[in-house]
């Protein structure tokens, strides 16, 4: 039971943050887009503030929230670099990631986000299947 309660609670908290942000600021929460703005746009302050909050909030893991599975030991750096390059390039080319397409896009039933989510889920599942 616990195995589902925490994911559901976490999901509700994520939904609350995206819904509140939408109604207050008019914008969607897309982490890949916000990161790109923090790095490459002229208006960096707000995206940088967002990412600082994200990292601080995520730091609750292991401090307030006990991991049920340990973090992976450092894996092959080359694997992490190839993964990061694909995620960085792919999310910009595809205009979004798990948050922008997966959460915010599906919440408003966007056809682009539905297609993107089906594709990145399917390719990720296939990748795990082939590399395991």
């Amino acid at each position, binding site marked *: 039971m616990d195995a589902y309660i925490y994911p559901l609670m976490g999901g509700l908290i994520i939904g*609350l943050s995206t819904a509140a942000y939408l109604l207050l600021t*008019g914008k969607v929460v897309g982490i890949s887009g916000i990161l790109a703005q923090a790095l490459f746009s002229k208006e960096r302050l707000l995206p940088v503030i967002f990412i600082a909050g994200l990292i601080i*909030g995520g730091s609750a893991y292991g401090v307030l929230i006990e991991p049920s599975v340990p973090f992976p030991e450092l894996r092959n750096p080359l*694997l992490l670099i190839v993964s990061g390059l694909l995620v960085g390039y792919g999310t910009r080319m595809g205009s979004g990631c798990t*948050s922008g397409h997966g959460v915010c896009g599906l919440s408003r039933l966007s056809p682009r986000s539905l297609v993107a989510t089906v594709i990145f889920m399917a390719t990720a599942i296939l990748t795990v*299947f082939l590399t395991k």
Partner: protein
Amino acid sequence: MIALVTFLTGLLFGLGLAVSEMTNPAIVLGFLDIFGNWNPSLVFVMGGAVAIGMLGYVIRNRRTKPWLADKWYVPTRRDIDKNLIIGSAMFGIGWGLSGYCPGPGLTALTNNPAEAVYFVGALIAGAGLFHFQNHRKNS
């Protein structure tokens, strides 16, 4: 005020990732491993987030503008183009290799810095490569 809301949104989003354990790539890989020892937790994370997100759009559709801004900045494109398909496929392959998508990758900077330096460095390089390629093309 906008700065405070932006900070709290990031904080809450990060906390949601932590509570749902999406900050840990081992859990995410367990979800993606549907043909193995499947961990369904991401279904509940997405379900909870989308349910509240939909409620947000129901309220939005009854309002002419946001509380703290003059207009909505919600994406309006509906076309399915090549970039969307290829980009999303590249993202999925990268996500499946490590279990990190952008949010959990960034939170790993404090949770698992030994891995995050490689992943986040490459994440920024990949995003930058696309940005500068297209910046040049458009100018």
